[in-house]
């Protein structure tokens, strides 16, 4: 005996499930994004709504513009000489490219982890994690120590390094270094964490550890991970965007993309039938 009103609610919820992109809070809202490196166009009219507190994978063959798209989310592409873009990117409703936005401030809220782990070679593990806070004026020992521990725990690195926090960060193994970089990015408490093929230089066990981390990370922020490894996308993302030749071909729930994609191109890529 379910009251009618309850039934309606259930129906509404189901409806939301269908249309989850609409329902979930949108973290990054990208509209008609085009990007050129000099004369070469790398992105064509990309529009995508990345849901908050979920992990979104961007997959596609190499050179299709995954990194480029990712770097427009924290305006890192502006470092590349000759890069121009058109279109809009909003972070929780705020236009990232409005002239008053300071990219330095933006980057404190949108963190990034790179393909090759890059802990600062002159700094200890502790200094690496805290460098962003310290250079932005945080002096309070208590805050710094708390953040150090919480971020290293979040990056599943605490137990391995807690007894030698003052050793150089570059002395760690490749996988540990990459987790150190994750801790370093998370220390800024970003709203979005961008990861550009964070595991492509790591062995399978180190890769697995980082994939497991993503579940923890998305409770704190929106995770966007670029990978050319489809299994990885399948394992650790809620949503998947498939890109090809600078265009966004399809964006949907990961299960949908992997089991029943709308586009033939996606299916060909997923099934490895790609030329």
């Amino acid at each position, binding site marked *: 005996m379910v009251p009618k009103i309850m039934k309606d609610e259930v129906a509404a919820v189901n409806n939301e499930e269908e249309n989850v992109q609409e329902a979930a809070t949108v973290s990054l809202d990208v509209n008609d994004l085009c990007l050129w490196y000099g004369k070469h166009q790398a992105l064509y009219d990309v529009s995508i709504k990345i849901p908050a507190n979920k992990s979104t994978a961007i997959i596609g063959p190499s050179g299709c513009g995954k990194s480029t798209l990712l770097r427009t989310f924290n305006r890192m592409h502006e470092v590349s000489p000759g890069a121009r873009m058109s279109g809009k990117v909003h972070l929780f409703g705020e236009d990232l490219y409005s002239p008053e936005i300071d990219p330095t401030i933006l980057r404190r809220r949108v963190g990034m982890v790179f393909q090759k782990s*890059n802990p600062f070679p*002159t700094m200890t593990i502790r200094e690496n994690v805290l460098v*962003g806070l310290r250079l932005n004026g945080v002096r309070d020992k208590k805050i710094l120590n708390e953040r150090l521990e919480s971020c290293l725990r979040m990056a599943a690195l605490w137990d391995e390094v807690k007894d030698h926090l003052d050793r150089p960060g570059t002395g760690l193994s490749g996988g540990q270094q990459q987790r150190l970089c994750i801790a370093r990015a998370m220390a800024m408490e970003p709203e979005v964490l961008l990861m550009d093929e964070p595991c492509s230089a790591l062995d399978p066990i180190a890769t697995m550890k980082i994939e497991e981390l993503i579940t923890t990370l998305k409770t704190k922020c929106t995770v966007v991970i670029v990978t050319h490894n489809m299994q990885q996308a399948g394992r650790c993302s809620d949503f998947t965007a498939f890109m090809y030749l600078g265009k966004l071909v399809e964006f949907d729930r990961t299960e949908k993309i992997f089991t029943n994609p709308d586009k033939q191109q996606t299916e060909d890529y997923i099934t490895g039938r790609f030329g």
Partner: protein
Amino acid sequence: MSTTSLLASSRQNNHLWRKIKNWLMVSSSIGSALLVILPLGLVLFYLVYKGAAAINLGFFTNVPAPPGDTDGGMANAIVGSFLLLGMAVLVGAPMGILGGIYLSEYGNEKLNGAIRFCADVLNGVPSIVWSIIVYEVLVVPMRGYSLLSGGIALGLMMIPLVLRTTEEVLVLVPNSYREAALALGIARWQIIVKIVVATAYKGIITAVLVAGARIAGETAPLLFTAFGNLNWCTGLNQPVAALPLQIYAYAISAYEDWHRQAWAGALVLIGFVFIINISVRFMTRERKA
């Protein structure tokens, strides 16, 4: 695809002639390498042979004495050389380092090209020209030779050397560190100071040391600036003795014991340059570890 067998091709290839060519190449490289080392060996040997006898405690503690008086030394010139070197570093290092930072971290291609070209031209300016220019610009208005003008003349010579080397070591800092820092929302100047320069600081110190070693023995820039002094220098605006000047003055004198002291001075000067170079080696070795 060739159808000749391996054996046949090998036989065709004239083994003996190739061996001779190889031998010629190896022996001429070894010969050239020896020719580089030989002069250094000769110089060191000759300096020790001629100068060692005149080196005693008094040489390091006394000021010059009149000819015939054997307890004269070069204490004032040794100290003077260090004062001049220190002054030169104060002038040349900041300008050179900041210039190198500009070239590596800011700058656009066109302007950088122009700056590099100027630095290379400056590097080629004969040292006597620096001396004359500083004489006109500083010595004449100040109405006298001085430690200040000598240090500035040497410092100006250091700038292009420090600038180019600093740029080289900063460019070697991988871009991934700059990117990582940018992505943390760290301000540009902080990235440069705390990340880039901090990563390359040994190379920068090396650049300053190498430039210092290079100008430590310069005589010409001091001729019309520091001028030399037979006694202690008493102020920034006073003439100052320097090892190269003292060596020069003693070497062209007519007195046997002054000649000997000139050799000793040269040995000490080479010793200092040697020590600087050793410390550079030490620093660069550590950097690799």
